[in-house]
């Protein structure tokens, strides 16, 4: 029972990290960035590349190496997010939503099959595993590294919450999400703030990618597709556009999957996730924390 809880929290914190980027970008420019899951994949591959190059050195350092690699991967995916916004989305600002959505799907394919060209179609095995000795914690077996990864995820989320609620940049983000034109009248460089949002969201996805590589041990160029959909589900469950909602939705989805699959079998895992998406979209489309969208007078 506690084991299920741990697994749920663990997977849920991945989902939450990826869902955050989804929800931030949606919150600020109302775009469902379908390429977001692929930035998670990119993060995993960057981590893999760095670890392979560093070779034995990294393997010796183990967990510390994974942390350093995570920072590098965050910088790379963050920058990739910037480029994506600049090249694919900014020229379409003000274009019909559907055009932007199709562009996002195209960007997703470009990243996936670009990686297939660069790294090959076969799955790669992560050089650093989070093996370690499991300790017994309240009847569950969990390694210190796994617990640390959850901690890192929590720290990243706390940092983001502080950034959005407590800093000038965060205030500007919230202002733009409510009224981009009024934000211009405040002297906010809206393009720059949107770019920063993409960087942060993409970096969080990159961190989750490295964590997933270390946890599952296997990565491939399509790994971002399903987690992208799951993160979207998590964001919708929490209330899309709402940061706390994305964290909550991610954890909720992780726990639902963990308990659901334990009771009815692993093959039902994705059915659970998307079944809940449908339930939420039908019964409470604004999600757990989502606010009712009211028209401005």
């Amino acid at each position, binding site marked *: 029972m506690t084991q299920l809880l741990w697994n749920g929290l663990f997977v849920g914190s991945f989902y939450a990290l990826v869902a955050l980027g989804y929800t931030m970008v949606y919150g600020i420019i109302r775009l469902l960035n379908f390429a977001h899951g692929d930035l998670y994949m990119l993060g995993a591959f960057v981590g893999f590349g760095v670890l392979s190059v560093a070779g034995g050195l990294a393997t010796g350092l183990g967990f510390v190496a994974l942390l350093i690699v995570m920072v590098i991967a965050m910088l790379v995916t963050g920058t990739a997010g910037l480029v994506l916004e600049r090249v694919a989305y900014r020229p379409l600002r003000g274009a019909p939503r559907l055009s932007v959505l199709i562009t996002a799907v195209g960007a997703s394919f470009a990243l996936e099959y670009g990686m297939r060209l660069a790294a090959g179609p076969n799955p790669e095995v992560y050089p650093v595993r989070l093996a370690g000795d499991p300790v017994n914690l309240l009847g569950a077996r969990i390694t210190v590294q796994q617990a640390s990864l959850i901690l890192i995820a929590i720290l990243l989320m706390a940092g983001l919450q502080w950034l959005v609620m407590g800093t000038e940049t965060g*205030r500007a983000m919230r202002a733009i999400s409510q009224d981009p034109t009024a934000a211009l*009248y405040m002297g906010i460089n809206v393009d720059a703030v949107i770019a920063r949002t993409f960087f942060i969201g993409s970096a969080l996805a990159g961190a989750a990618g490295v964590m997933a590589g270390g946890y599952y041990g296997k990565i491939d160029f399509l790994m971002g597709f399903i987690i992208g959909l799951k993160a979207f589900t998590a964001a919708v469950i929490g209330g899309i556009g709402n940061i706390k909602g994305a964290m909550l939705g991610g954890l909720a989805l992780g726990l639902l999957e963990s308990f659901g699959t334990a009771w009815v079998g692993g093959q039902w895992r994705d059915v659970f996730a998307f079944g809940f998406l449908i339930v939420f979209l039908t019964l409470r489309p604004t999600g757990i924390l989502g606010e009712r969208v009211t028209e401005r007078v």
Partner: protein
Amino acid sequence: MSDAAGRWALEIDGLDVHYGRVHALRGLTLTVGEGEIIALLGNNGAGKTSTLATVSGVVRSTGGTVRAFGRDITKAKPWEIVGAGLVHVPEGRRIFSRLTVHENLQLGGYLVSDKTVVSRRIDEVYTLLPRLAERRNQHGGNLSGGEQQMLAVGRALVAKPKLLMLDEPSMGLAPLVVAQIMKLIRQINADGTSVLLVEQNARAALKIAHRAYVVENGVITLQGPARELARDSRVVEAYLGA
């Protein structure tokens, strides 16, 4: 009034704006002298809001020039224009309804890098508008219409404007509240800020303005000292509802 050296806060010369095939401004020309209150009057769709949005850099002009304090800002970005001291209080107030009153005011000082200056200016706004101080932790959306307009003006003041542009600040407000707003604008002007006031409420605007312009179909059709325009039969008929 502009002094002998001819210092203009704002010079709009032959401004053209198109929205697709709609020709919204057709060579509009007006000036605001340093220290003046200028009223820009006209009906819905005459081009008042387009004029302000173009000066603020939110709408791109297709012809003509805009100069502020001697500097050409025709092609400047909105944030550069705010940085040059031109601050716009938009139509419908456009306060951030899910941010607190205090956060709204902080955003007014977004371009001020010294945040101690921002908090000092916010304190000044609270002294000037005590209602806002009482509601500082409430969401902007919970304020009454008059309070929201006060917040929109206060938010602009935190940027310390040299030219304050107000778009229909009296819209939807009770006569008593309109009088308060006009008094506030006069007070801001007395402290040295030039004002460009766009209004449909010609009566209230002409009371406080030094000079006024009337815009129809994107061009200025009448201009002159506010006191004279208030007596002009064409203005009285069309805008003061004699």
